[in-house]
């Protein structure tokens, strides 16, 4: 799951990454007073787990406490792409950016071993965009999971990024902190984009994206699904062991067993000219209760005009599914 920006920043900052000053989280209008201790102007950033917030008007400069209150009122409770805004992050401005960099650590799926650090002087834009436009500007560092990330490797990357002096040293701190968050928190991705190089030679994480492996949550009591990209519906589905992903379609509430078969069923709906409205995987060996809860979700969704159930009777008992469906 993807953590909200503020939570990712909190984890990175704990291990030494500089983040913008302020960093106050407002959950309701009652919290506004905590902003009084901060230095205005501030930037109000609605905590939603997707890119392009600025374009959607979800990042705003506020000059007074009144402005800040208005921003919080506008954002909180608003639902954007099915995601309810639960928190607003307020940060102080005053970061004088000389250059925006990109850096991330991810699992090296291609080699099925170790990790991969990506870095680029083209920060501030989507890395996929960079990969398309100028792939030569992406620096790749392969990290052996036993060997770990060593300082000399990071210095090599810093050099390729054109960092010098204290900024190069800071980059070692930043990369090591990212690596610690990545390994200690079972992350699938730790990304800082942009990582600002300030005019006085400091590195500050302006925006971050941290994805945590859902399977590891049992050993991270300080990570809450409330701070993730799960929508209200997805959180509800999780309680019953269902995997639910909302799609944009209008027809075919799709419920199947197994991710592959569920996706194939969605694809078939599309193949025959309709738009699938959801992915609902009841998993292997689903009980009648989880089937009933899943079906309830689909039937109460106004967008959905028809429900398509596709169960392969292998491990899952079709009679159990039938019982849950009536």
């Amino acid at each position, binding site marked *: 799951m993807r953590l909200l920006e503020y939570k990712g920043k909190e984890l990175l900052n704990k291990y030494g990454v500089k983040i913008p000053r302020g960093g106050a989280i407002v959950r309701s209008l009652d919290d506004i007073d905590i902003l009084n201790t901060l230095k205005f102007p501030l930037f109000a950033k609605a905590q939603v787990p997707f890119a392009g917030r600025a374009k959607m008007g979800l990042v705003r400069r506020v000059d007074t406490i009144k402005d800040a209150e208005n921003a919080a009122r506008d954002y909180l409770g608003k639902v954007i792409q099915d995601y309810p805004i639960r928190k607003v992050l307020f940060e102080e401005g005053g970061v004088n950016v000389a250059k925006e960099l990109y850096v991330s650590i991810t699992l090296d799926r291609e080699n099925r071993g170790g990790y991969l650090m990506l870095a680029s002087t083209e920060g501030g834009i989507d890395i996929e965009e960079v990969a398309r436009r100028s792939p030569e500007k992406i620096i790749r560092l392969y990290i052996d999971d036993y060997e770990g990330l060593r300082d000399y490797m990071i210095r090599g990357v810093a050099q390729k990024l054109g960092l010098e002096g204290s900024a190069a040293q800071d980059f070692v701190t930043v990369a090591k902190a990212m690596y610690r968050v990545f390994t200690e928190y079972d992350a699938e991705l730790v990304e800082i984009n942009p990582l600002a190089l300030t005019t006085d030679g400091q590195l500050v994480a302006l925006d971050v994206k941290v994805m945590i*492996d859902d399977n590891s949550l049992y050993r991270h009591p300080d990570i809450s699904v409330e701070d993730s990209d799960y929508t209200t519906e997805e959180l509800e589905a999780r309680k019953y062991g269902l995997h639910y992903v909302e799609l944009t379609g209008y027809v075919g509430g799709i419920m199947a067993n197994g991710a592959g078969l569920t996706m194939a069923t969605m694809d078939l709906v599309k193949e025959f000219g309709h738009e699938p409205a959801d992915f609902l995987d009841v998993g292997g060996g689903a009980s009648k209760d989880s089937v009933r809860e899943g079906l309830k979700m689909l039937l109460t969704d106004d967008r959905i005009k028809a429900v398509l159930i596709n169960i392969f009777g292998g491990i899952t008992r079709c009679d159990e599914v039938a019982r849950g469906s009536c």
Partner: protein
Amino acid sequence: MGMAILVNENTKVLVQGITGREGSRHTQYMLQYGTKVVAGVTPGKGGQTVHGVPVFDTVEEALRKFPPDINTSIIFVPAQFAADSVYEAIDAGIKLIVIITEHIPIHDALKFVNYAKRKGVTIIGPNCPGVVSPLRSKVGILPNHIYTKSGPVGIVSRSGTLTYEISYHLTQAGIGQSTVVGIGGDPIIGTDMLEVVKMFEEDPETKYIVVIGEIGGTMEERLAQYIGSGKVTKPVVAYISGRTAPPGKRMGGHAGAIVSMGMGGSYESKVKAFQEVNVPVAKTPTEVVKLIKQYIR
């Protein structure tokens, strides 16, 4: 009788996590299928039997009691303890380990997959349905009633139920399978498509190969590249699921099925990769049968 890959009549199985609900149930199904299940392990439950299969406290003890019979292990141990069981099997010297358990933390999997590689151990999974060579042996949870005909088609798949679906249609059409391998839906798995396709290429019984892929990662693209280099002489047919899956979202139990990071992995990228090397991609699961038939006639 041909050879098939990974499992055959000489496969002798240890079940780790045999006393659990899934472990015990599937031990019974494997026995019914004809798989030689020799022993089971659950720490603290040594001395019991499950469907007539003796249970031991440790893998080492089970191997000592049945030398040198056991050559394969299947793991049903719950996710939080599964990694420990994998290391135990590797260190005891078992050379093929099939991990059924889902929800194993990815960082754990990455470490034991690399450990297994260094020790020359083959891991199938995690989060997979296992392996079946029809009428000979099944090390997995694939439904018995689907795998009733051996034959020329080798299947490698990232999915479970979708594989059963396609296997069923093949069998209905009179086309048997040499071996069916479910490699698992996680981002880090022990054996990938390319490695299984190489095994099928070497296997005299397998004449045709079916690849069931899905969005996420670049496994299919890398396989296509290999096929493009001319090293696969047998006809390959593919099906890819996830065309309608939204980017950046993890698709249910398949943590590997996520398109992100500009690292390829989209439906379009995979289909294009296969088409460029003349591997036909079925538009629907049942179309796989039609495409295979064109080669067989």
